[in-house]
């Protein structure tokens, strides 16, 4: 069983001793060149007058009628130079700061944002509500493997302001850095940035210590979302980090080749980075390219393919070659729901293992999400945690020194001897058997170990009952409630989100 002990939140990135490269220098050069050619000759759709004007003022080639921006390579190079390689995604305490681009290893997210959840009581799937977001944030606060927190599910009972409620739920239930991917319009962005500012103690303090950030997903191929882009500009204006994500589906919204998908993905991401650097130079950016494959029979979106996952690992090198931090890999199975289904396991192991070895600054991680990010099964976080524990152990490699070679012990024990009764074995063996949900002894005669799914549920129940994330001051909580209530009453916001503009 894993140790269940109440305490304040902590974070634990995984630093890999082992290294992997997917692309050689020539590959990186070619993909970068292809991305630049795409940006210069094909262009990206920016359906936002604001963004088009920013690009035009910076002398990019803008077609205001078609809303296509073509960015000359020299502009891309000039503006990307302004993006910092190192910065902090801050938590509410320095111990929870994720120092991005440094030597600390890979920080993991619990990501999202699924519309459905497996009910903890009934085991049935249902639409998620705000209390599910709160519970999940609390769980994320508890487990050190999670450094960065998203609303993992949608606050589906809150209508158009669900993304704002989701961010509030996270702020109230974790001290860790909060990021959103669903605040996709400028008005919602401003409400949530205001909340973050109240927590940080003012706009300047928020800029200094950004406890909140945005990840914006492009629309493959080669398009941005109007509201999303304007939200990104609001975050950048506040000095908050803005990440850009591409999710190309190989063979559908990207060419039927991994390299081509990486090129279009990189172009989408860089177009967003360049926009924020033109408007607000020095904005902390990061990128992520998450390819998937289209099932050639059913048309289903399928993330868990080794073709797409290795491409996501390659994106680590592409990002770094452009001086940008990178997030790698999702954490959700293809379409298999059963917790103990082998398909769900294998898809998450090799992808994350390779990303950590490639030196990803961040990675989507233990989230309990399956079915292409549409379903949250909270207990599954324990399953994810097992995988990350294994990755941590594997990527630390092997320590070889006089101590670990243990020649004197070998000489002492000799041929046909037994090492078990040695004091050093007593000290070392427990370290080789880390806490796990897999080997919980069963009380039943017919089974050796308890069903890990049951053990996982027990852990989640314990965390939800016993973990109490350090709360925000009552006056801060009250201020957040006021901001959210104002958003709920804002008719302009509702019209904006429902597309009524």
């Amino acid at each position: 069983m894993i140790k269940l002990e109440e305490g304040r939140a902590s974070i634990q990135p995984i630093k890999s001793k082992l290294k992997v490269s997917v692309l050689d220098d020539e590959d990186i050069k070619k993909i970068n060149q292809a991305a630049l050619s795409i940006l210069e000759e094909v262009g990206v759709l920016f359906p936002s007058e604001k963004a088009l004007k920013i690009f035009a003022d910076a002398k990019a080639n803008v077609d205001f009628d078609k809303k296509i921006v073509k960015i000359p390579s020299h502009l891309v190079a000039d503006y990307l130079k302004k993006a910092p390689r190192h910065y902090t995604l801050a938590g509410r305490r320095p111990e929870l700061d994720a120092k991005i681009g440094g030597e600390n290893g890979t920080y993991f997210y619990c990501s999202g944002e699924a519309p459905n959840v497996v009910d903890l009581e009934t085991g049935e799937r249902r639409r998620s509500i705000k209390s599910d977001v709160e519970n999940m944030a609390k769980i994320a606060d508890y487990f050190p493997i999670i450094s960065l927190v998203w609303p993992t599910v949608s606050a589906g009972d809150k209508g158009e302001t669900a993304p704002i409620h989701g961010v509030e739920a996270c702020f109230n239930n974790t001290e860790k850095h909060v990021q959103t991917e669903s605040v996709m319009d400028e008005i919602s962005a401003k409400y949530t940035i205001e909340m973050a500012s109240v927590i940080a103690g003012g706009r300047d303090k928020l800029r200094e210590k950004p406890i909140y950030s945005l990840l914006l997903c492009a629309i493959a191929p080669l398009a941005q979302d109007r509201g999303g882009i304007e939200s990104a500009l609001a975050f950048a204006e506040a000095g908050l980090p803005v990440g850009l994500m591409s999710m190309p589906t190989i063979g559908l919204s990207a060419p039927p080749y991994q390299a081509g998908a990486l090129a279009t993905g990189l172009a989408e991401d860089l177009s967003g980075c360049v926009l924020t650097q033109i408007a607000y130079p020095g904005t902390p950016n990061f990128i992520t390219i998450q390819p998937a494959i289209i099932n050639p029979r059913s048309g289903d979106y399928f993330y868990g393919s080794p073709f797409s996952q290795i491409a996501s690992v390659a994106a680590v090198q592409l990002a770094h070659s452009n001086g940008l931090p990178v997030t790698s890999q999702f954490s959700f199975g293809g379409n298999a729901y059963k917790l103990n289904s082998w398909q769900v396991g294998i898809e998450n192991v090799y992808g994350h293992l390779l990303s950590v070895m490639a030196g990803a600054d961040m990675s989507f991680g233990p989230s309990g999400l399956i079915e292409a990010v549409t379903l949250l099964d909270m207990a599954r976080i324990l399953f994810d945690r097992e995988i990350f524990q294994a990755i941590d152990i594997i990527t630390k490699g092997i320590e070889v020194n006089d101590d670990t070679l243990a020649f004197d012990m070998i000489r002492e024990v000799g041929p046909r001897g037994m090492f078990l009764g040695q004091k050093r074995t007593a000290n070392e063996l427990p370290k080789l058997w880390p806490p796990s949900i897999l080997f919980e002894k069963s009380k039943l005669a017919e089974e050796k170990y308890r069903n890990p799914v049951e053990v996982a549920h027990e852990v989640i129940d314990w965390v939800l009952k016993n973990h109490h994330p350090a709360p925000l001051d009552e006056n801060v909580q009250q201020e957040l409630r006021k901001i959210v209530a104002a958003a709920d009453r804002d008719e302009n916001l509702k019209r904006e989100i429902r597309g009524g503009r």
Partner: protein
Amino acid sequence: MNNKELFTKMEQSIINYDKDEAVRLAKMALEKGIDPTKAVDEGFVKGIQTVGDLFSREEIFLPELVMGAEAMTAATDILEEAIKKSGGKAKYLAKGVAGTVQGDIHDIGIRLVTTFLVANGFDIVFLGANISSSLFVEKAKELKPDLILLSALLTTTMPNQKEVIDSLKEAGIRENVKVLVGGAPISQDWADQIGADGYGENASAAVKVAKKLIGV
């Protein structure tokens, strides 16, 4: 070339995924004054049926299906005006109108669904992305489709699927049409909750549900 030969060539153009050839033959049919309904039913539809069969036998994959459907649509677009004028009706399984709801521009999924349906003998008018409820109602009144297909990718635009259904009720035409919903956050529960007639979790499921709804 007699009519039979022309119809065979039309059929073959779809089987060969040759959009340019299909368009050329469609125009030829108009020039020769051939009954456009026959051109569709005895020429192009036979071709798309073969493509559909090959796909269900797993001898070809989606890219071929898409190419076949695109050739089919290109040809039938040419002949549609003439069919309307002649008062004829091509032997489609059913007619549908498809698009993403207001506020949502993620249309690649519904485009794929449209392709699948065309490849299965449906006549689908693809309205595009970010379609207002009032436009769906307007098109429903104008085109009198058997099906309306509504797609949404975002949880924040999903409610517009309900809005379309409510708008059809207000316009007094809800009973005349079957509404199918789909998209990543959509589920059977949601479809039931908003009073949709069907839900398909992917493109091939959408075809099965559509066929069931029209009683095929």
